């Protein structure tokens, strides 16, 4: 099709569909109203299991199977992207020489921020069942933090700190731990992904049953997976050259 034909076809379809969408939205209960049936049940269930962050309770306790699926998507996408970004038959992977020239001050700032982000990431994971954050958010922060080394001008340092094979191991183990905890729930309480650990007292670090453990599993998987992803893209952009 010509660009024009394509555009007209799209516009015709989209405008018809938009009419339906507008009619549909006018049938919604309005923005910010008070009726949320699932919410009422979910909050009660979270409090019952001593989980102060209800979003974590939904993600890891009540609808844990969704998160298992989500972690599998992450695992599959990372493995898939890594496989797609492997060097092709005629390509070469050569590491760049030297550290590049970066101002000392920038480098120092990079290292300081690195330390802070690593701490922040661990904190986010550890308190995921109490405060906003959790395995996913913390994992992303950890992985991005590690890549501040690149900003600090040290691609070789980054490459050393980043033995990709062990990150793959970590990713696999993190995902396996999540599924394994699910199976443990089946063995102990007779139901897959059942929250088998004691709930503890509401708001404590050791509360919410197995939610903190699941957070750690997800944190490890996400951190390792994101590192692998970014590493593969960096490799493509920096060290892999065509025939």
């Amino acid at each position, binding site marked *: 099709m010509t660009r024009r034909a*394509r555009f007209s076809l799209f516009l015709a379809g989209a405008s018809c569909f938009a009419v339906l969408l507008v009619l549909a939205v006018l049938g919604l209960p309005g923005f910010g109203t008070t009726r949320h049936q699932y919410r009422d049940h979910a909050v009660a269930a979270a409090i019952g299991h001593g989980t102060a962050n209800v979003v974590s309770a939904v993600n890891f306790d009540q609808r844990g199977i969704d998160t298992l699926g989500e972690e599998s998507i992450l695992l599959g996408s990372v493995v898939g992207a890594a496989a797609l970004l492997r060097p092709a038959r005629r390509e070469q992977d050569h590491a760049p020489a030297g550290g590049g020239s970066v101002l000392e001050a920038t480098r120092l700032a990079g290292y300081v921020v690195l330390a802070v982000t690593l701490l922040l990431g661990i904190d986010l994971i550890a308190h995921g069942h109490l405060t906003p954050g959790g395995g996913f958010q913390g994992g992303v922060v950890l992985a991005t933090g590690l890549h501040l080394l690149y900003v600090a001008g040290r691609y070789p340092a980054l490459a050393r700190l980043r033995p990709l094979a062990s990150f793959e191991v970590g990713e696999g183990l993190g995902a*396996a731990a999540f599924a394994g905890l699910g199976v443990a729930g089946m063995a102990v309480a007779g139901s897959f992904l059942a929250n088998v650990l004691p709930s503890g007292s509401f708001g404590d670090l050791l509360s919410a049953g197995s939610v903190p453990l699941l957070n750690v599993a997800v944190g490890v998987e996400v951190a390792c997976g994101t590192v692998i992803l970014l590493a593969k893209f960096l490799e493509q952009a920096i060290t892999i050259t065509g025939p």
Partner: protein
Amino acid sequence: MGTFEAGTSQLLALAVAVPILGACLMVAVTRLARLVADSVATAVAVAVAVIDGWVLVHTGAGRVVLWHGGWLPVRGFSVGVSFVGDQFGAGLALLVAVLMAAALLYSWRYFEAVEAHYHALMLLFLAGMQGFALSGDLFDMFVFFELMGAVAYALTAFKIEDASALQGGLSFAIMNSLGAYFALFGVGLVYARTGQLGLPELNRALVGHRPDALLVAAFVLVSCGFLVKAAMVPFHFWLADAHAVAPSSVCVLFSGVMVELGLYGFVRVYLVVFRPVLPGPDITRAFVVLGAITAVVGAVMCFGQRHIKRLLAYSTIGHVGLFLMALSVLSPDGVGGAAVYAVGHAGAKGALFLLGGILLNRYGSVDELELFGRGRRHRWTGVAFVVGALALAGLPPFGTALGKSMAEESLASAGYGWAPALFVAVSAVTGAAVLRAGLRVFFGVGPPPLGSGSGATPGTEEPDVEGRLTRVPLTMAAAIAALFGVALVGGVWRLVPDAVDRGAQRFADGTGYAAQALAHVPAGPTRALPGGWWGVEGVALSLASVALAVVLALGAIYLSRLPDAVRAWGRRLQPGYRVLRRLHSGHIGDYVAWFMAGLAGVAALVGFPLR
């Protein structure tokens, strides 16, 4: 609920957890020996098949229900997520696992795989399809839909040396992601109205509800999202691009079950959630029309191909159109017919893709014209290919023939008297295209074809294996034999169509689904349906389509010797075909534009009768 039943229900979770754990093992243990990776992956697929089989046997009392995390429903509501294994869900899951085992067996040792990445992706693919087939929750279906999507994109583009594989993978990924996001938008609309996500809870929430724009929009969004995966016209463009270029073992799953899972999701959601609101006859009319268009487009495009895997891909579109027509009748016999047909099709099409893969790995090409006569030495591969083609056309006693006749009967009795003729024509044309290719390549029948005349995509492609195959390894032959077994089972073992018939009655009963999942109400009795086995009329129609397929194939091969009148008639069809072919442009912008137009079309078909 007794402990034994509770134990069986936990198996539903294992059907998802076991392949995920297997995939984790493949990722965590780097440098896994090839033999270990192959055997562990195949063993996992077989284990999942055993689990599904066990569940299927225990669905006798109705449905096996699992509430994850032990969140059992209280007064008709649970904050948890359910898996519901009825005969259709568990049966489809079993078919998935069997096909996966065959695909892994085929790629045993020979398939060029990067470490164990291929195996990890295949196992996650298995987990995604299991979850989608068993899930009883709208959002959870979206998650597993995305899981099977994400790994499927990576598997499609796995041969990164191949430009068409990458482009096919990207079109597939963009279209399917778009479908998933639209479906999720629909889920959000339904949630806003009802405050529910579980299929059983939604069923109860919508009983007695009036149809309005919001519910129509939600239904259209969710259905179209799933129908993108099912490759309905005009959402089908990605399919040929992806199926033609994916590794042959992956194609078995793509054509055999992934596309059918899209249909399954669509029908399941309609029957359980939207049926109380949107009247059946309108839905039947809308989707019989859509299915018929899909079937015709698929068949016509199929006949015009010379790239054998692309040809098989278009034939899948044709057949899926027929499945949709039969499913849209919404009665147990239509649904059952579609299911028997789909099982037979999965086996036959899978075997054909693997035979095409053998050609690719031996000659580095899957081009019908280029390979003319070069397969003569491989008599058995050739015979298998021709038998597969005839099975596709509906040769008794293959399951395709039985399912087709059941579907035809149900459509005819639902008032679509023209449907049987369409079924015969579409299966004959697609069978004829495959038969034509098989006769030319393996038997050198007819005059050597003149290359490049038709302008269709030539069949150059990167092989799946390292180095050229010199003989067919035993593992590959075993995988192909197993798939022929799947194609036959529905037609020769009466238990299968009978069980499908009973399963279809449960599948069509959305109220019963909700009652059993939420309140342990045992499923009602099912009755034996008349006409679930071979009848004179069905056999006659099947033989007619096989005969028509043979005539068409020979006609295409000996085109130059046909009388002038016939050839002139054929030439008159050429311009129409050329327009249709040009619409399949490989351009992602076109595909999205068609997607939007299709969305509007489905909305009109569903919405206007309600006014």
